[in-house]
């Protein structure tokens, strides 16, 4: 019973993680497909800014 519950919990965790892993691979492919280095860097600069803003809001409030 205990191991079955544990297995269900692990499956639940994997189901939640799968979109993140899928998103990581998809983001890598989409981010590089047919783009020059300059275009990749321009996109990354915008993404870093969003990560900074999100992190700052979560850590210190708006």
């Amino acid at each position, binding site marked *: 019973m205990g191991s079955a519950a544990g297995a269900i919990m692990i499956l639940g965790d994997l189901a939640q*993680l799968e979109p*993140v892993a899928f998103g990581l691979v998809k983001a*890598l492919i989409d981010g590089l497909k047919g783009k020059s280095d300059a275009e990749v860097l321009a996109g990354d600069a915008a993404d870093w800014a969003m990560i900074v803003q999100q992190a700052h809001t*979560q*850590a210190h409030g708006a």
Partner: protein
Amino acid sequence: MKKAFLIFVLAVSLTQAGCPKGAYHDAVIAEHSFKTAVGSFQKAELIEFQMGRISPEEHKVIEAQVEKIALAGQALTQALQSGATSTTVNERFGLLSQALSDLLKSGVLGIKNENSKMVLQVAIVTAQDILQNVSQFLPAGSF
């Protein structure tokens, strides 16, 4: 004959030295992969927080560290955009590596929920793997 010899020497030199454009492109790929890994880490951490598996206090500490990493990431991207030398770019990668270690030590390892800790540790190891070999393909003077 002399011209053929010079072309041969030039070709061998380029092969041995490595292609500068290749090293720059490799650095861009590493930067992009690292940025994607940090973005995924942040999404995963938010999910764990929203599910109630990470406390508000743990969440704030982790996101403050993510902000430091992202600011270091911005500096790396700007260095690549502005045509900085491979030495400078390598230093920026080094700062990212240090910030990532700080995130692990002061944020992730302090998470009480073991499953959440494991999930986020995996994400950090992925990001560390991306940074691990950077110094090998970015020797001084490669661009």
